């Protein structure tokens, strides 16, 4: 466990630099090679210095005996990734900035992207049913809960479960809706390949967010059930293994979505550049 307090923050601090350095540099006709390479060099140096500082802070805290504090340096990931790595990735390849303007023109489709067409309301019904059943079981077993934990603990426990389950559904629905609102810039002329990629990507994001919501809800219910009726300590194992698995899968899905987005943006950019060449 102590080693984890060192490994996890170090992994989080090194991830941005590894991700940014492995991002290939794309130089097309619209970009000046010398200018791009110079900017990449500056941003790369800044990222490396910031990473060294972050790692040094974690290691110094660890060596100084403040192992718990060292474990909590992992949020340094956020300034490292969003403040240093992301600008470098965008400098290497403008397609990494999904909402960035590649040139002075920008096009959009007139198609109405309705989230209901991707994940229909009916798909949510089984999840609501599971929540309703769980609520029913808790009401039914209320007396046993009170006997085992006392009134105040039972009330607090049920309230935490209800808030967590409700929060999970609201965030899930919001996330699925947000997939339909993500920017989808087009080239000036309709392109069937780009349209198809956008449809596939939208569907993938919506259904994975939906799946994540369902699995998180089920994990919450399992944990709540184990707390009341399960063997002692079981909830810790199920909760930590299930939560960590969901987190890792979520991270992988996020990276896949980003790579797909970049692929589409690169295509939009190349189609627009090709059209500009035709006009010239």
């Amino acid at each position, binding site marked *: 466990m102590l080693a984890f307090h060192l490994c996890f923050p170090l992994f989080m601090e090194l991830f941005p630099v590894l991700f940014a350095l492995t991002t290939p540099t794309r130089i097309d006709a619209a970009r000046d090679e010398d200018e791009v390479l110079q900017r990449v060099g500056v941003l790369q140096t800044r990222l490396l210095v910031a990473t060294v500082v972050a790692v040094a802070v974690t290691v110094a805290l660890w060596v100084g005996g403040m192992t718990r504090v060292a474990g909590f340096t992992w949020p340094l990931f956020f300034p490292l990734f969003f403040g240093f790595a992301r600008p470098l990735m965008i400098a290497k390849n403008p397609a990494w900035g999904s*909402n960035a*303007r590649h040139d*002075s*023109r*920008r*096009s*959009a*489709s*007139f*198609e*109405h*992207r309705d989230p209901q067409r991707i994940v229909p309301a009916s798909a949510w019904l089984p999840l609501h049913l599971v929540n309703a059943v769980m609520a029913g079981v808790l009401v039914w077993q209320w007396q046993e809960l009170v006997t085992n934990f006392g009134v105040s603990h039972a009330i607090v426990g049920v309230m935490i479960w209800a808030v967590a389950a409700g929060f999970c559904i609201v965030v899930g629905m919001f996330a699925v809706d947000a997939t*339909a*609102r*993500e*920017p*989808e*810039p*087009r080239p*000036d*002329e*309709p392109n069937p390949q780009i349209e198809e990629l956008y449809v596939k990507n939208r569907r993938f994001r919506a259904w994975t967010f939906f799946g994540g919501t369902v699995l998180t809800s089920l994990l919450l219910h399992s944990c709540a059930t184990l707390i009341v009726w399960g063997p002692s300590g079981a909830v810790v194992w199920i909760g930590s293994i299930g939560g960590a698995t969901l987190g890792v899968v979520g991270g992988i899905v996020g990276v896949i979505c980003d790579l797909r987005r970049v692929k589409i943006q690169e295509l939009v950019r190349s189609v627009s550049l090709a059209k500009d060449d035709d006009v010239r």
Partner: protein
Amino acid sequence: MLTINFDSPVSLTAQITDGVRRAIAVGELAAGTVLPPVRQLAADLGVNLNTVARAYRALEERGLVVTRRGRGTSVAATTETARPKREVVKDVSAKLRPLLSDARLAGLGADQVRELVEREMKLVWKRG
């Protein structure tokens, strides 16, 4: 497809309004077609929500679109009936004159310009 140019001296709201009007004129947007929500179009074009909302309001004032609560904004008509025809003719003439002057100053002949206008007219009137 709606395209805007960030370097253009024409305001973004006017470009969006003109883009939707053009799409209605050429039949790309038929009567009853639901337009993308303000939030979606603003995200796709990389502009502020208010810019798109203002463009939709301008289109509504012209009678081209209608916004209904819960149903979004849809194409109401494919012709602008709100303005008298004489005013429209005056407006079109006023817009044509500088364009034709530009063409003449650029050295295009009358036949070339006529051909150009006819080609553009075919695009606009192709769907009846």
